């Protein structure tokens, strides 16, 4: 017991000192924190349930992605069969059908079948590690080609789309000017968005949930309104509904299928005001290719109407009064400043490659979060003080050492959480309290054991020595079981359970260190200097 080597004392002191140093930044006010050198700028992040903010879980619509994938392939097939070297190079096809999981078509001239297959093969790409392509091409009934997406191809397409979606959402959320948003992919088809301190979750959802696929398409002037109402439209046209609250009474427009210009050709979009009506609008600018197309089409179609379509809904369908040159245009609709701004951000950041829907939302207002922190802190302090007092009353001097250990335990937990940039949530606070309980239990075990050994007539040093060594076994087993529980919680649990498990795991390690090693150091030092013949415990 007396044998507590100097190097151990120094090592423990260094750890404790580091614990205090690393936990300090978590307590200082934000202003001071920002003025600290960057190495010291590590602190415990407060979870959204404490600090306030929004947590959104977005899920990609995989079915929609597959549909897009098939639609794109259909275009590719048509383009490939058209050939590069003019009409001589064309392969005549027919009966092109797109089903839910395959594209099939007929090659009219059987002699061109192999050529057709080769052209398509050149359009496919390797997917996965096995040399598999992203589409499989099969010839059936000697004249028909069937294209099916392979599973590796689909996996790759989803992964690619999700990465792109993540980047786009990241751009959109950052454009809101919010502080330190977290946007990460989760699992196969999900993205987690966490924005601290956000006041208006509805605006956030509006902003990131929008696919923002913008298209300019001509209104089909030949369509008969009555026929259209009955669902019959000219070939090459389709019925497109108005977005909610738009259209001044009209429910839909009949639009040409062909897209004049799409959002991909935008180089900028920003919220501004219509000079005539002073209504909020979105001003957009096209790249040079887009500007040329736009100028050409509008010059040919003066007096006709074109429609601005966003995510499959018509925003507005103005008449072309004069050719629109210079590559800039205005998107009008019944916008508020905020919604125009949101649309501008969405357009600037690009269209999401796949539809995303919010499947989980948790929002806590900053006031409620602040209230929880305040109450949690007060309750934590009262709880700690009560337990410390109890330890003092029951174990005297040994209780004092236990208390010192407990206080260091708190510092160490905070320091480690800060070093790992971990997040403290409400269940985390409960985990904190539990580890304090575990630390108390460890000291209770040791002290009770010392009492017992003294009662059995042992000398002071021997009783203390045995107290520590005999109790350590139970402390070890008890804490290993808790680590097992905590790690299973971390691996298999979600959200709050994870937050709880993190604090619990850190706390178990630190509490064993402070409750056993640190108190032992103090006790050993005291015994060595004072050499008491009896102790009060």
């Amino acid at each position, binding site marked *: 017991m007396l044998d507590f080597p100097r190097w151990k004392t120094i090592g423990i002191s260094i750890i404790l000192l580091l614990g205090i140093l690393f936990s300090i930044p978590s307590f200082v006010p934000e202003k001071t924190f920002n003025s600290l050198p960057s190495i010291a700028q590590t602190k415990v992040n407060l979870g959204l349930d404490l600090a306030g903010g929004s947590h959104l879980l977005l899920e990609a619509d995989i079915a929609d992605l597959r549909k897009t994938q098939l639609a794109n392939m259909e275009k590719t097939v048509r383009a490939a069969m058209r050939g590069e070297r003019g009409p001589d190079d064309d392969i005549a096809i027919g009966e092109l059908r797109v089903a839910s999981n395959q594209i099939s078509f007929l090659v009219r001239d059987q002699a061109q079948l192999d050529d057709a297959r080769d052209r398509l093969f050149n359009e496919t790409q390797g997917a996965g590690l096995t040399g598999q392509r992203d589409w499989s091409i099969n010839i059936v009934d000697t004249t028909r080609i069937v294209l099916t997406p392979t599973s590796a191809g689909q996996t790759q397409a989803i992964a690619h789309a999700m990465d792109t979606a993540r980047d786009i959402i990241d751009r959109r959320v950052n454009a809101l000017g919010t502080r330190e948003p977290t946007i990460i992919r989760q699992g196969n088809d999900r993205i987690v968005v966490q924005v601290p301190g956000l006041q208006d979750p509805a605006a956030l*959802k509006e902003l990131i949930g929008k696919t923002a696929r913008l298209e300019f398409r001509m209104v089909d002037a030949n369509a008969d309104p009555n026929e259209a109402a009955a669902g019959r439209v000219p070939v090459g046209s389709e019925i497109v509904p108005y977005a909610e609250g738009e259209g001044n009474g009209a429910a839909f427009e009949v639009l040409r299928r062909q897209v004049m210009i799409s959002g991909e050709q935008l180089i900028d979009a920003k919220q501004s005001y219509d000079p005539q009506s002073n209504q909020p609008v979105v001003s957009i600018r096209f790249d040079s290719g887009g500007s040329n197309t736009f100028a050409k089409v509008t010059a040919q179609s003066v007096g006709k109407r074109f429609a601005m379509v966003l995510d499959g809904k018509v925003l507005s369908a103005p008449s072309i009064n004069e050719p629109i040159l210079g590559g800039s245009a205005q998107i009008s609709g019944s916008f508020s400043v905020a919604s125009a701004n949101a649309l501008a951000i969405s357009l600037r950041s690009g269209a999401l490659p796949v539809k995303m829907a919010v499947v989980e939302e948790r929002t806590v207002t900053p*006031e*409620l979060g602040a209230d929880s922190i305040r109450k949690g802190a007060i309750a934590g302090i009262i709880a700690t003080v009560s*337990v410390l007092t109890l330890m003092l009353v029951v174990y005297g001097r040994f209780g004092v050492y236990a208390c010192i250990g407990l206080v260091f335990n708190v510092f160490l937990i905070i320091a480690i959480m800060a070093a790992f940039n971990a997040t403290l949530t409400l269940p985390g606070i409960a985990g904190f309290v539990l580890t304090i309980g575990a630390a*108390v*239990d460890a000291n209770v075990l040791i002290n009770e054991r010392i009492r017992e050994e003294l009662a059995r007539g042992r000398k002071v040093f021997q009783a203390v020595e045995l107290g520590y060594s005999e109790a350590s076994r139970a402390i070890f087993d008890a804490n290993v079981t808790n680590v097992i529980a905590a790690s299973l919680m971390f691996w298999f649990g979600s959200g709050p359970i994870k937050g709880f498990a993190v604090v619990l795991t850190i706390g178990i390690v630190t509490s064993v260190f402070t409750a056993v090693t640190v108190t032992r150091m103090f006790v050993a030092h005291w015994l060595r200097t004072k050499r008491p013949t009896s102790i009060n415990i």
Partner: protein
Amino acid sequence: MRLLKLVPDNTNIDFLRWRKFASFMSFFLVAVSIALVAVKGLNFGVDFVGGQSVRVEFTQEMPPIDEIREKVGQIGLGEATIQQFGSDKAVSIRTALPEGDKTVAERAGQQLVAGIQKAFPTAKTGSVETVSGKVSEELIRTGALSLGLAIIGISIYIWIRFEWQFGVGALGRLFHEVSLTFGLFAVTQMQFDLNSVAALLTIVGYSLNDTIVVYDRIRENLKKYRKMEIIPLLNLSINETLSRTVMTTVAMVLALGMLLIFGPDVIFGFTAAMLFGVFIGGYSSVLMSTPVLVWLKVGPGSFVPRTSAGIEGGERIERKDDGAVV
């Protein structure tokens, strides 16, 4: 200074005398809990059933629950579950999510908040939670999985570190604790959500602390007093660890009690469940976790290294009256 002793020295209570009664009580309570869960069911939060939940705080006098229910009903999102938070002027209002398109669900959240703000202009809507059915199913699965695996993992560890009888005892005890806590949630109809699962896991961890302390002492005494009958030995072990059990329980009750009284209402249910778990844990350590060892015939041979000649004899140490080991 005279120090406080929560348990007098040389306490010697014959706990095992009540083992039949305690076992009966435990079986009875487990059965009642299971029945309660089956009959009353658990009041699942949005985490587990999906739906949306808004926390509303009234800055002035809180209107009667029925009035709130009626006005929320008028928003047109179906029957609402309204629950008071602690003693505050705050309620949680929970409704189902409309079926169908995902965007319908998104809009419904805004609809609920807007509707509440219109009906009660002075109320503040604090937090909004929306969980779709698919996600809630996953949360149930991961919650149940982490609970089940934690229990199994821990029992295996105890089996390895002790003997199989102890593993069985621990498993039985965990089942007991978890069932009773579920019973508590069923009888109080406290909201059962992800935080509650964390509370359950904590109870599991805490009660294991207790089990291990007692089992560790039994193991130690089994090695030390090889000729002692098992029942007096178990009694001795429980009594020797009694002051620790009481002290730790008091400390935990103090800490959790303070958290319950002064802590934020968001963790009220969480803390209440843990407090309940601490009480059950105390009862189990003293009365419930040892009878199993008697039935499964844990004996002096349990921790003796086995040799080909059978149980190794070794030197037998008799316990002397003063308890000191010579």
